[in-house]
Each structure stands twice: as structure tokens, then as C-alpha cells.
């Protein structure tokens, strides 16, 4: 399954691992903040609705 990367196996594999990890961290952080802000906004809007 793994292609023959010859003497550059470490370089090529590490480039892919580093990049994929960075992209996944970016996506995870973006989704986490999106969920938190959405939840907090809903709570705040409910609170503002009750107080109105």
C-alpha cells in the first residue's frame, strides 16, 4: 500500500504528517469556537428574551 519513497521516506512522510496535523488542528479549533459561540449566543438570546 505504501509507495516506495526510497531514501526520502522520512522527509516525504514527515511533510505529509506535519501538514495534515496542522490542517486538522485548524479545522478542530474553528469548529470548537463555532460551537462555543453559537451555544453562548443562544443562551444570551434566551436570557434577553426572558428579560424583555
Amino acid at each position, binding site marked *: 500500500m505504501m509507495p516506495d519513497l526510497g531514501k526520502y521516506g522520512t522527509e*516525504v512522510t514527515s511533510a505529509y504528517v*506535519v501538514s495534515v496535523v496542522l490542517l486538522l488542528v485548524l479545522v478542530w479549533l474553528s*469548529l470548537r469556537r463555532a460551537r462555543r459561540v453559537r451555544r453562548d449566543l443562544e443562551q444570551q438570546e434566551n436570557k434577553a428574551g426572558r*428579560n424583555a
Partner: protein
Amino acid sequence: MIMSIWEYANPRQFMATSGRVLPWLVGLTLINLLVGLVWGFFFTPDDYRQGATVKIIYLHVPSALMAINAWMMMLVASLIWLIRRHHVSALAARAAAPIGLTMTLIALLTGAIWGKPMWGTYWAWDPRLTSFLILFLFYLGYIALWEAIEVPDVAADLTSVLCLVGSVFALLSRYAVNFWNQGLHQGASLSLDKKENVADVFYFPLLVSIAGFVLLFLTLLLLRTRTEIRARRLQALRARELSA
């Protein structure tokens, strides 16, 4: 009917349209990224000079391209904010910065990993590499400035000016090889002029990978801009509650 772009300056309109587009963008992004990277990593041959390190091109070129283009998008959004005072554009610029920062970091790291076996060094003070490092620092400064200023409109003003200044380095990152005919970095791997392009066997998976990175940028941009719009509304509601 095609809407005017200015209608998206209305946060409500932006949220409605982006909410409809986002699921499709997620699907397209996943397909393009998976196909591009799997094709590039598993099903392309080695280069006769670079060996298997040529496979790094499918990460390095798209990330470098998006590092520069993300800043250019921020520049346009910042200009719209400065000239027309549309809040969504300022928030979109803010939302794009962490994506651009990550793309710049990926370009720098994959370039360094490739450079060691090919150039014999991880780093050289080459015009393109140096301008990319400065662009990375500008991204950090831009994000830090947004976080440091509490009044949103003042933060948007100052970060927009910083973005204008930083765009010099974004342009230099793109054209440094042409401006200064020195340094280790080679010229463009892709061009509208077919003669300058890499061989087709590398070219087509590279195009798919680039499409994947562009779509990933758009997807995250919409997602993060929606979050920024909600965060701004949350901030306003809390301020209203405190003042009541």
C-alpha cells in the same frame, strides 16, 4: 437573480446564504483534498532529479499559494471596511487570518523539509523564503492586534492598516524570485504559459490539490466569518445587558 455583492454586507443575508452553501463546500473540499493528496502521494512517479521528494509539491505549492491569496483576500476585505464600513468584510478579514497563518506555516515547514535533501539546508536567507517568513510574522501581528483591542471598530481600523502594509510582503513573497534573480528558490511551478509548467503527470494531481486547498480556505472562511458575526452579536447583547 444574481444578487449584488453588497447585499452580503448585511449579516442576516450573509448568514442565510453561507448557511446554504457551506454543506456543499464541505463535501467538495473533502473530495478534492482527498483525491489530490492521495493521487499525489500514492500514484505519481518519482522525479528524475528530486526523487520521491517531488511528492511534497502537492502540499507546498497549494499552501504557499493560499498563504499569499489569503492575505490578498484580507486586503480586499480591509479596503472594503476602510472605504464602505461594512462590518462583515472586517470580520471576514479577521476570520481569514488564522487560515492564512496555518497555510504559511505549512509552506515554510514543507519547504524546509524539502530543502534539506535538495539544497542541503533547511533554511536560507533567500528573498522568497525571507519574505514568506516576514509574511508569517505579519499574520501573527495581525491576529495579535485584533485580540489586543477591545473596541471592535478601532480594531478593524488598525488591523486594516496593518493589512495594507503587510500586503507589500505578500506581493514580495509571490514575485521575489522575479524581482531578485538570486537565491535558492526556483521560479513558478505553475503558469498560464504551458512551457513553464511541471510535467503533466505531476501537473494534474497538483491542480486537484490546489483546488482542494482553495475550497478548504473558502469553507473555513465562511465557517469562521459566521462565528465572528455571532461573536459580535453576543458581545453587543452582553454590553446591552450590562448597561441596562
